[in-house]
């Protein structure tokens, strides 16, 4: 590995900004084509197999906060996404009463170190939504163009699942799925009565090996801590580090990219970045620049890259950079299962995620909203962590005492201790994650009133959910209640109503933000062409979720990687033809 700082003048074939799903994939494909590559990452290096980086298999008492979340790790002290919604010295702003929360992860591998590994292909309908319901826009490509890349991603990275033959949930090359856990069997019982399908989940953990380089899952239920056996997909160990071992790849950590530099003809010449360690600015030169900094960060870099040839920022002659920002919808509900009170103890870990899920199953023609959602299920005997034993002032009543009366809320002593033990593993939760309608009026732009601690102008967000998303959340809540009730659960809390938009999550909170550099055939209404190449800068490409025209009711990562692979094949081809 080479980490030597290159000063102005050092040239690479390609500069890749970001080391997450898109940047990692680009580093692999481009270096394997023999190109020299620089990968710039704004955070620190990270390798979950190194003892000093390991949080996997650590019990809560190794944390003085017993695993509670922090500003830097809102998902818990052992979670491996360093950053969060509120990073010291890296602010962002919101217009008026906009609510939008921007999650960033500053480390090699980015958010892939902790993500849920839900690895779903977009289906044929997901690329052609406007043709189906008249809303939003169609993608300039379809499933057939991406299918070969999804196939390759499946085989390269590994995903378990089952072939189901559902038209809009395309099957892939699956590793063996896993038997459901007990609470998942109860969920299946409830879903069956409610006429809602459940199938084996599709997650990128290796239930069997796909090569001899990575280990196989040993079922610790902690994929959000990144795996020391490399048995789940994280970009660092699976894509970037192997690329560095085999090819001409230099990794620059703590490198915060400020702009894409361009020449008078408007072509990209490289990037300018702040080295966070010495707080100095450096320039790197390359024939091609590939942005994979995340949808909003890549848009920010482009809008901040103003020059004579690109007065609105590179790639932004259409004014579309930052526009059509959209996140998945999300809502949740949980219940307590009396059938699981005082349940038998055994190792129930499985993989770090659900073993079964519900893909979207209804026809919107019969509904009062467009687009669908999938349902995730959670519960069971997970490792006690910060929060276990909370809320006994309201939850104890769900238990019966020896005479069959509800136990009194609150209290103390041996009785309370026993009741927490009896309640352990009795929750059953559901989360809907759905498709929203991209809006021109939902966007991020440069806020000229504020810079971050590196002196780089920050983003300002504008975002409002529409009736489509609100009605979808209402439908989720109705479904959750029906399934939980049919499963035998006592519903917790009250059903979220119109006053809370039916529990609809604040945009950004599902961390599937996409669309800010969308692709399209028309250069006036899109930023990139169908090869994710900037319409107005032929050697600038985007490989994160910015190019998405619409975010399906599926997690974006598998599509980011399939698209990035396709984009990189195009880059290699164009370089060979000397077109760029």
């Amino acid at each position, binding site marked *: 590995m080479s980490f030597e700082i290159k000063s102005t003048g050092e040239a690479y074939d390609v500069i890749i900004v970001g080391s997450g799903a898109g940047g990692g994939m680009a580093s692999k494909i481009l270096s394997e084509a023999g190109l020299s590559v620089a990968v710039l990452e704004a955070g620190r290096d990270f390798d979950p197999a190194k003892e000093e980086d390991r949080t996997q298999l650590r019990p809560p008492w190794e944390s003085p*906060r017993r695993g509670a979340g922090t500003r830097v790790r809102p998902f818990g002290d052992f979670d491996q996404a360093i950053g969060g919604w509120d990073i010291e010295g890296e602010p962002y702003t919101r217009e008026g009463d906009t609510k939008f929360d921007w999650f960033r992860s500053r480390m090699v591998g980015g958010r892939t170190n902790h993500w849920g590994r839900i690895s779903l292909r977009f289906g044929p309908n997901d690329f052609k939504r406007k043709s189906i319901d008249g809303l939003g826009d169609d993608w300039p490509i379809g499933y057939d163009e991406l299918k070969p890349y999804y196939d390759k991603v*499946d085989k390269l990275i590994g995903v378990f699942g089952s072939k189901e033959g559902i038209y809009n949930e395309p099957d892939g090359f699956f590793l063996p799925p896993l038997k459901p856990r007990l609470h998942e069997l109860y969920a299946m019982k409830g879903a069956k009565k409610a006429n809602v399908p459940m199938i084996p989940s599709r997650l990128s953990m290796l239930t069997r090996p796909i090569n001899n380089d990575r280990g196989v899952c040993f079922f610790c*239920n902690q994929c959000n801590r990144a795996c020391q056996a490399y048995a789940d997909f994280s970009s660092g160990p699976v894509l970037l580090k192997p690329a560095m071992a085999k090819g001409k790849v230099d990794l620059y950590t703590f490198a915060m990219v400020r702009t894409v530099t361009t020449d008078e003809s408007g072509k990209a010449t490289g990037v300018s970045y702040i080295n966070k360690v010495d707080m100095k600015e450096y320039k790197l030169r390359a024939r091609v620049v590939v942005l994979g900094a995340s949808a909003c960060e890549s848009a920010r870099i482009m809008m901040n890259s103003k020059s004579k040839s690109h007065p609105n920022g590179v790639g932004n002659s259409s004014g579309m950079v930052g526009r059509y920002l959209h996140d998945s919808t999300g809502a949740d509900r949980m219940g307590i299962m009396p059938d699981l009170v005082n349940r038998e103890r055994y190792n129930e*870990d499985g993989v770090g995620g659900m073993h079964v899920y519900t893909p979207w199953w209804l026809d919107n023609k019969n509904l009062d909203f467009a687009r669908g959602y999938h349902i995730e299920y959670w519960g069971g005997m997970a490792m006690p962590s910060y929060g276990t034993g909370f809320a006994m002032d309201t939850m104890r009543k769900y238990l019966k005492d020896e005479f069959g009366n509800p136990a009194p809320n609150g209290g103390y002593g041996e009785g*309370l201790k026993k009741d927490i033990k009896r309640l352990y593993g009795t929750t059953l939760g559901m989360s809907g994650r759905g498709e929203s309608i991209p809006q021109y009026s939902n966007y991020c732009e440069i806020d000229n009133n504020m810079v971050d601690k590196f002196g780089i102008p920050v983003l300002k967000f504008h975002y409002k959910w529409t009736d489509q998303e609100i009605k979808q959340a209402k439908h989720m809540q109705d479904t959750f209640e029906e399934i939980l009730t049919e499963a035998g659960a006592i519903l917790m809390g009250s059903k979220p109503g119109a006053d809370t938009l039916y529990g609809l999550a604040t945009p950004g909170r599902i961390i599937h933000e996409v669309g800010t550099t969308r692709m399209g055939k028309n250069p006036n209404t899109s930023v990139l062409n169908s090869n994710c190449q900037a319409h107005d800068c032929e050697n600038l490409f985007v490989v994160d979720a910015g190019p998405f025209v619409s975010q399906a009711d599926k997690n974006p990562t598998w599509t980011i990687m399939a698209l990035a692979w396709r984009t990189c094949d195009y880059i290699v081809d164009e370089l060979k033809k000397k077109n760029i």
Partner: protein
Amino acid sequence: MNRRENLKLLFTGSLASGLLLTHCTPADKAEDFSPKIAGGTPGGRTAEEIAYDQRLLSEVFFTDEERKKLDFLVDIIMPAGEDSGSATEAGVPEFIEFMMKDQPSFQTPIRGGLMWLDNYSDDTYGKKFLDLSEKEKMEVIDLIAWPDKAPKELTGPVRFFNALRNLTCTGYFTSEIGFKYIGYKGNTPNVWDGVPDEVMKKHGFEYPEKYMALYLKPEERGKVAEWDNEGNLVG
């Protein structure tokens, strides 16, 4: 940012990045930024995280007097049993001490609640809380420990006790003693092969026949996967 801070950034738990080593003099390299106080969270920490944990661990929030009350109360909430230790044995007071600094919004309600115990005891019994008899102490606690029965005017103290109960219970069940008591069996390398048969029977479940041939077979877990062109696993 000065050079010292630069180096702190560099020593982020992992020396792997080594980004700036090329710029360091040997004297710089000798500087040691590793944690000095044991007890911070391990595993991939940033320099800022290490410094933050170190600062919290070096500070003391509770006075000796408060700490005595806290020790007494947490063992009332989670006492030792026949087969399990108490909250103090599980390190709960140390955990709560840390949380006061880690999440400062706890400070006023918890400190104020501990003061309220003395105020109320003084008004009612003419003594501070810890000087009450065991019977009197339990009378005070019973006033605020049962949210559905407590008098309306004591909502504040009830909320204090709810917060203290939350912290005590979660501290207890995230300790080694708590793991043993609750019967936690996970987080050891294993092969998931479904719910044990007797549990399946008891709850009246069977795995769907349709998927039995597909589910992971533990004995095939070492075999590198191969597929035919249709995506069927063949090897």
